[in-house]
């Protein structure tokens, strides 16, 4: 495996020109290259949404699940074959709308996967409805008088739910995002990277410029090992903090499962003679 073009899919993405997802795509490929992961050892699990369909445009094993359902699929893939690099790509509508339950429980479960959440604060694929992360009062075709609900803070939710690695980045800063994905991958456990991703077609408010003006990079001196501090950082909403907010060392789910503590699942399928079970407990 020599260079980044090894990860190029057969077809080009169907995103709008200038879409923030191009930045995420580039960062994912760069991260895989940096981590020296062969295309056939990477599995990207996407869903239904502009950004989450990323799997189609990376040369690797891909799975595009139903809207918001990639996280359960991704966890199971990793449990069955921990040798794979498993990255779930998911949007804001999917991660904190349709699939919130899965995000929260994945955080408690701590399977060793990377979860890249592209947050464009709108529903792009379905042409412009409000999202659970849209700013309050945001006018869209489904909220012509402005949204009423308070937006969800993805990073704060991930920390509160117990994710053992939480970072935030920006699709316009490919270098930073690549670094976050590499760190997320190296982290042993469920790693969330929220990515501010401008939707150039439907979100005229949270643009590249708006994102640049409303974010700042976390100081190098910041130690991400204090949950309360991380939470405070996550809640900052005048300017959003970019970088690694929180890391904790915690046992990984698939290595804690009773029968997988010693070795991963046997890949060969054989008949199991259950006669002993019958004789011992059911006679």
């Amino acid at each position, binding site marked *: 495996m020599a260079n980044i073009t090894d990860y190029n899919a057969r077809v080009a993405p169907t995103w709008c020109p200038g879409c923030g997802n191009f930045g995420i795509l580039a960062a994912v490929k760069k991260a895989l290259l940096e981590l020296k992961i062969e295309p056939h050892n990477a599995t990207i699990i996407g869903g239904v949404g502009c950004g989450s369909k990323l799997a189609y445009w990376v040369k690797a094993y891909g799975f595009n699940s139903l809207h918001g359902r990639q996280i359960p699929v991704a966890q*199971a893939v990793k449990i069955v074959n921990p040798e794979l690099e498993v990255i779930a790509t998911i949007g804001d509508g999917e991660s904190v709308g349709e699939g919130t339950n899965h995000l929260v429980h994945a955080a408690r479960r701590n399977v060793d996967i990377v979860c890249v959440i592209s947050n464009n604060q709108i529903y792009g694929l379905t042409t412009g409805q409000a999202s659970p992360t849209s700013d309050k009062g945001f006018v869209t075709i489904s909220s012509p008088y402005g949204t009423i609900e308070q937006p969800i803070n993805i990073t704060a939710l991930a920390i509160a739910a117990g994710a053992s690695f939480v970072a935030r980045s920006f699709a316009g800063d490919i270098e930073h995002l690549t670094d976050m994905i590499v760190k997320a991958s190296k982290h042993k456990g469920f790693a969330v990277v929220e990515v501010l991703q401008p939707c150039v077609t439907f979100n005229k408010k949270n643009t590249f410029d708006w994102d640049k003006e409303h974010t700042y990079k976390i100081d190098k001196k910041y130690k991400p090992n204090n949950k309360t501090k991380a939470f405070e950082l996550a809640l900052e909403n005048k300017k959003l903090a970019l970088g690694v907010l929180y890391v904790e060392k915690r046992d990984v789910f698939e290595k804690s499962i009773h029968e997988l503590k010693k070795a991963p699942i046997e890949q060969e399928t054989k008949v199991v003679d259950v006669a002993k079970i019958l004789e011992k407990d059911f006679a």
Partner: protein
Amino acid sequence: MKKMVMNKLNLVIGGEAGYGIMNTGLAFAKFSIRNGLYAFLSHEYPSLVRGGHNTSAVRVSDSEIGSHHDKLSILIALNEETIEKHYEQLEHDGILIYDKAEIKELNIPAKGIQLVDVPFVKISTEICNKRLLSNSVALGATVAVLNGELKIMNGILKEMYEEKGKEIIEWNLKACKAGYDSVKKNFHGRVNHEIKAIKSAKKCIITGNEAIGLGALAAGCKFHSQYPMTPTTQLLTFMALYGPKNGAVVVQPEDEISSIHMAIGASFAGVRAMCATAGGGFCLMSEGFGLAGITEIPIVVVVGQRAGPATGLPTKTEQSDLNLALHSGQGEIARIVIAPSDVEDAFYSTIEAFELADKFQVPAILLPDKYLCVNGKTTEKISCSDLTINRGKLISDKQLSAMTEFKRYSLETEDGVSYRSIPGQKNGMYDAASDEHNEFGQIVEDSKPRTCMMEKRMKKIPFILKDLSKPELIGDKNADITLIGWGSTKSAIEEAMDELRDSANLSVNHLHVKYLSPFQSDDIKNILSGCKKIIIIEGNYTSQLASLIREKTGIEIKYKINRYDGKQFTSHEIYKKVMEVLGNGISGTVQNKSFGGAQWQI
């Protein structure tokens, strides 16, 4: 005077939840099988953790049995409600074992019933200061009434309470002996049933849930995800306990949607995977089921039926999710639906479901019901000695290395099944897509690729059909009456046929339908075209199987026996209903009394 009956009886123990009713039933069932006999164990319980009315019934015989009867030889009442609700079921000279001190007033006509007063509560409190040993006292008393071997029951109690520690074991053994001694000392009535050990092959008793779990493990299932829901919760318990030591990872996920998606992910990553739920949970899995279909990833889904709709009667049985199993999920996919009839069938059908799912890369549903799931049937027929595993078209590394590009969803197949790679295999990369896709798995929206891919997936159906064992008409093919059934009513229907022959001199045959999808339209049409009067028996309101038969064969079944009160037909009830149908003439609508309601349909 009634003749003494050896090794054939029907017993019910009843009481409040929290008093170990189910375990007591199981203990007595095990007692029977360790005497070399067959036991059928059935439970009725409300959706409560404490209180309510719970019963376990044990029907014992020296030959194979697969359903319960209503007439009782012995009724063990741990509370007054049990007596009120069940005394009418006792046969003449039947035995009521109860604690007289606990009953305010015995308001039953005792004539014809032998009353056996055993001080459950007094004995229990003398041993441990609590009432909780009442059931073990009752077990000892029952063994005595049947002139059975106490030490066999002792062995069972020791095993049952092994994990609770020495003191609890001692208490229960003491309680059992005290109950036994009490009867031996004080009961001077007529013993009209006895249990005497007979030499026979070693037997075990398992429930449908356990049979499915055993089948899954035997078939090499390595991943099971399940959110608890009656009536398949016991499958989760079984898999969680036995899975780890037998190669399977078991996950209890946050909801049913996660459950099916995890199973799909696990299967995508290369192992045999299963998930389980009940009708309501399967509703949540609908879209995921279609996902497995369009991505052509094999999974096995266990859907346990219970009385609906919505929460319905959570702990009662019904056969009303056939339509759900056949049609759930938007759009159209090839699917397998198998309804097992008893525990052996559940074991082997589970293995068959994994084999077919792998071979054809389709999702497969196992469709039992509460009656099958939680009741115990004695079996000697479960064996793994002839089992083989065939994972279907999994492409090898060698085959992949010889290719320039790999088309996971290649259209060049005879049977619609293309080779499948597993993540991690070099050169095997593809996208498993929920969107319509091309041969590489990439999104397409144009007519031609969509049409071709749809046809690829759907043309599997006739090939699956070829692999299914043919339906059989059991009995004389020229019989006057044909009974049709599916699922767990099979055994009761077979016994009803005996009664119809013996008591009413009728000629009857029986078509049991096991494969609901793909449906064996031609075979069933051929069979039914030669039948005379056809009566279908279903535990639902709308006669879902009758509708399916009409849809697939054009044959309209005029005579239907339905029930939807949460209970299962006994063979005698089927006999009576068939006689009612026949007694009301051959054609036209028939008004019959329903189970608990005013009328039912024909």
